[in-house]
């Protein structure tokens, strides 16, 4: 149980949250019903990333990639560009896979490591689903504007940190 909670905590860091909120808003923006295929792609990406980590592939610092996807998603959300569902699915699955790589389990024992990975996945899925749902429900004009404003905030934050990491 403690390892599962550790996994949950490992997800809730600013970089992961920024990236998942961005992709969640992108998936939910303008959607009339829950984008099940994007959610499926996200789950698939998360599963593949977790399996690769479980197959003893070393976890990498993929935070710059997460921020890159967050920045691009933020710009698309702010501009309210109607991008095809296929692009959203690819972005969601790529981000989820990269996310799993950025949060490898810290425990040495296999059961604990698996519980930790499950914790990360549950937190990532729950957060994504919540954000998609919130973005979907933002149907009134001022709510849609709010989503776009949050998109611009996400893009700005991600671009600044990316620049910092690439230069220092």
């Amino acid at each position, binding site marked *: 149980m403690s390892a599962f909670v550790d996994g949950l905590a490992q997800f809730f860091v600013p970089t992961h949250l920024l990236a998942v909120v961005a992709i969640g808003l992108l998936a939910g923006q303008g959607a009339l019903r829950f984008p099940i295929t994007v959610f499926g792609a996200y789950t698939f990406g998360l599963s593949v990333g977790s399996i690769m980590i479980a197959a003893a592939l070393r976890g990498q610092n993929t935070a710059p990639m997460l921020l890159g996807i967050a920045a691009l998603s933020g710009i698309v959300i702010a501009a309210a560009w109607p991008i095809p569902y296929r692009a959203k699915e690819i972005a969601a699955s790529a981000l989820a896979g990269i996310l799993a790589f950025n949060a490898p389990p810290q425990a040495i024992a296999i059961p604990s490591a698996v519980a930790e990975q499950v914790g990360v996945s549950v937190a990532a899925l729950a957060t994504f689903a919540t954000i998609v749902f919130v973005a979907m429900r933002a149907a009134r004009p001022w709510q849609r*504007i709010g989503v776009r*404003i949050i998109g*611009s905030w996400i*893009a*700005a*934050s991600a671009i600044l940190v990316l620049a910092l990491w690439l230069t220092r």
Partner: protein
Amino acid sequence: MIVKSTLVRHHPGVMTMLLTRVAVAAMLPTMLLAAPALAHTGAGGAGGFVSGFTHPLFGPDHVVAMVAVGLWGALLGQPAIWLLPVVFPLVMAFGGVLGIVGVPIPSVETGIATSAIVLGIMVALAARVPLWTAVLLVGAFAIFHGYAHGRELPDGADAVAFATGFVIATGTLHLSGIAFGLLARWPAGRLAVRAAGAAIALIGALYLGGLV
């Protein structure tokens, strides 16, 4: 006392509540006197966010300029009311990148003070300019604000939380400007908004003159 013990016997929840209160009372002084556990991994993110969020709030020239963006957007109406707060953070990020990379931009503080003066005057005059002019003007000033922030962005793991904090604070200042600016629907409110613009311009002039 009899009443109390009867109450406890028949309602076990009351006993729990009493014990909880005693425990909290005992813990409170310890919690207040204890040093924060800075080594905890989660503390860095929260600390970074709070530092980032409060960072723009400690520069009055920055604060008034951000509020002026919101006020002007509200006075201009649709679509400027939402376009300016969307454009500003994106261009500010570009300015921030220039600051991080170290591209020399002269007189950044002058640019920030000037932004307060110009935007304040626009609000005070309730200037109605074409949308592209407003976006260009606000975008140009956003570069100065972003540059100043970019130079001060801390290195390390806290950078994401810090950047998110100060972008949200900047956006919140825009939104508060918009909220106040919506008073312009009424004649007295319009007067108040325009007076706020004049005050913002005055604060900018004080900063530019080095009087603050």
